[in-house]
């Protein structure tokens, strides 16, 4: 049977507000922890954006190395990074205004 690949939802499908974590479960003993936890900023990124951040860290923050690895030009990679920075900053502002 084909394995279903699920992605972590971070926005409410009904009202588009950011979602919170309300329970965490242990896979080994089925212990469940309940509460209200904020999703970390990086977890609010899309799968592609998160992969970009991981690749960026793995390449020691070198955009030139990233560009070579991805087969893209330097300004394209820099623009992708700037878009992610903008998204993180917007999320940060939204989180602060929610509190």
């Amino acid at each position, binding site marked *: 049977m084909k394995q279903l690949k699920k992605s972590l939802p971070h926005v409410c499908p009904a009202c588009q507000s950011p979602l919170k974590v309300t329970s965490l479960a242990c896979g080994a003993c089925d212990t469940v922890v309940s509460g209200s936890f904020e999703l970390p900023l990086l977890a609010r990124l899309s799968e592609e954006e998160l992969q970009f951040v991981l690749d960026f860290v793995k390449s020691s923050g070198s955009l030139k190395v990233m560009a070579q690895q991805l087969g*893209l*030009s330097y*300004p*394209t990679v*820099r*623009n992708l990074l*700037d878009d992610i920075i903008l998204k993180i900053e917007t999320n940060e502002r939204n989180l602060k205004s929610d509190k």
Partner: protein
Amino acid sequence: MKTSWIFNPFTYIAGLKSLIIGWILILITACIAYYSKTHFDGVVDAHVWLGDLSIKYYFLEPVVDWGCLVLVIFLAGKFFSVSSIRFIDVAGTLALARAPMLFLAIVNFALPGIKDIYQMDALAILAIFTTVILEIWMIALMYNAFKVSCNIKGNKAVGVFIASLIIAEIFSKIFLHLLYQPLK
């Protein structure tokens, strides 16, 4: 990432690499333009002049056209972009964006100076149509070069690009007027 190589090769090529490729194509274009009598007398201009001009003008025209556009776009990028843009990316991508002019210089062999538009044959009409397509292609490439090298998007990108293109066109016309001055 779906990006057309025809309209936006800058997703893959920029900086020094595109500057070298772009300038090789510009020099080849200048050689062909000398024989097809094509003059690039403005950032987006291309006209056939039948006058007997020295070959140096065919090489100086693209330098002025490219130089004016690079300078204006770089300054616009520095002013309007939130990213830290590099001069080499602006210079390189805009050099490669002039690639369609190589084909235009070749097409102009079919346009040996038209004095009366009513006497144009089918080949000349087809050549004019082709040059219009090539001009649109070049402007599309210039716009994408600007978008990628300066990271400006949406309506702001369209507005800043159009304004930059008009300013660069005016500058290039002034500098080329000074360049042609000794001929008059």
